[in-house]
């Protein structure tokens, strides 16, 4: 059961199409598993439709409809399938979120004992700070806070960061008010997708160095 969701403003921005690409990717991957948030987005889309209907019409150039008709008659070439680039291995039974189909994902890099990470690059926004973290059972991320905002979608397993338990399907937004140390439960490893805006500030010097090395 999903207990943690994006807030209403984020779902609204998703419906409006105004989220930055990193956060939009995180929210999309949450929506794949969350009927409740899909309903909310649909409702905000209805708000968008109502605002659309209230627009003052802007003139279209002559002949635009004819161009539409011509294209419907000639038939559109099928959209190219996304090129799936090689992906690092996942635990058995876990699948890649559909939201990542355009992304390039690096191999799993070692960060600390029991802690690996992969860089997720969006071809349309290479600077977007999106990462995967893979944390072994019973291990933890170093304690840290965030310069701006960190969004996390749990893809597999579960962690507890002292505030709450986050399981597969859960979404978390942490900002500079949150200082936490996610600890993975003993039962199994945990894989999270994270979008980071601004730097993550780790407590220890070594962790800070590791964070800087991977661009957090």
């Amino acid at each position, binding site marked *: 059961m999903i207990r943690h969701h994006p807030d209403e*403003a984020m779902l609204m921005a998703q419906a409006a199409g105004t989220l930055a690409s990193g956060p939009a990717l995180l929210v999309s991957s949450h929506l794949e598993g969350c009927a409740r948030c899909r309903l909310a987005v649909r409702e905000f889309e209805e708000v968008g439709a109502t605002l659309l209907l209230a627009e003052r019409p802007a003139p*279209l150039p002559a002949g635009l409809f004819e161009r539409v*008709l011509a294209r419907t008659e*000639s038939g559109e070439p099928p959209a*190219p399938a996304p090129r799936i680039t090689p992906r690092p291995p996942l635990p058995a039974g876990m699948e890649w979120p559909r939201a990542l189909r355009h992304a390039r994902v690096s191999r799993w890099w070692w960060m600390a004992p029991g802690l690996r990470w992969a860089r997720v690059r969006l071809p349309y926004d290479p600077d977007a700070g999106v990462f995967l973290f893979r944390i072994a059972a019973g291990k933890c991320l170093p304690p840290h806070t965030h310069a701006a905002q960190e969004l996390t979608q749990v893809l597999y397993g579960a962690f507890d960061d002292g505030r709450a338990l986050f399981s597969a399907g859960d979404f978390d937004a942490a900002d500079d008010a949150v200082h936490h140390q996610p600890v993975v439960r003993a039962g199994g490893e945990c894989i999270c997708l994270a979008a980071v805006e601004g730097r993550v500030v780790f407590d220890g010097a070594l962790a800070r160095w590791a964070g800087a090395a991977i661009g957090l």
Partner: protein
Amino acid sequence: MTPTSRSAPPGTDDDGADAGGSVSFTLLHRLRARRLMDSPDRLDGLDALMLAVARDGDRAAFAALFAHFGPLVKSWLMRSGTSDSAADDIVQDTFVLLWNKAHQFDPARARVAAWLFTIARNLRIDRLRRVGDAGAMLDDAALDDLPAPDRPADDALGARRAEQRVRWALSQLTADQRHLLQLNFYEDRSHSDIASQLALPLGTVKTRLRRAAARLRELLHDHRP
């Protein structure tokens, strides 16, 4: 109806494009489209037009939808920062996609206005992304909806009453809340843009936006026509 059979809808050979550039279709079609538009609830009329497109490949209904929505979609695109010519391109793409995907239209799930809004929104995002990287085209699948959410019949935004419900909910917000939603939801202003425009701290803007969005949803669920 399959996408292939859609490309040559039946009974529409007299609807060809004319060189004059204006929307053209026969008088008979025009009258039929008008009748659909004038059904008791105008919005149901728009959905009826879309159904005619979906079921019969009705080009007159398609032309009427274009005439109604094309200028509205363009206006919205320009308000959210799209240039005039890019907006025309997106309007064009939106209606090509609407035609090609018409068989997926289900008025029980969403009214045509909402469907068009999501198509235009996705195409706008797609275009913004392509400016960054030519290889990053949204594939077709990105425009398909995920499975419909389970919703209790009583509590859902039924397509039929959605318009009244949304209008009512928006009218119940404070003027400040409406303004904030308008800026963020509709004009694509970032939180920090809004903060500087309203001379408010960023945290305050975020909190108020969260509250306004949550209040709007509560109202959408409270409404009992």
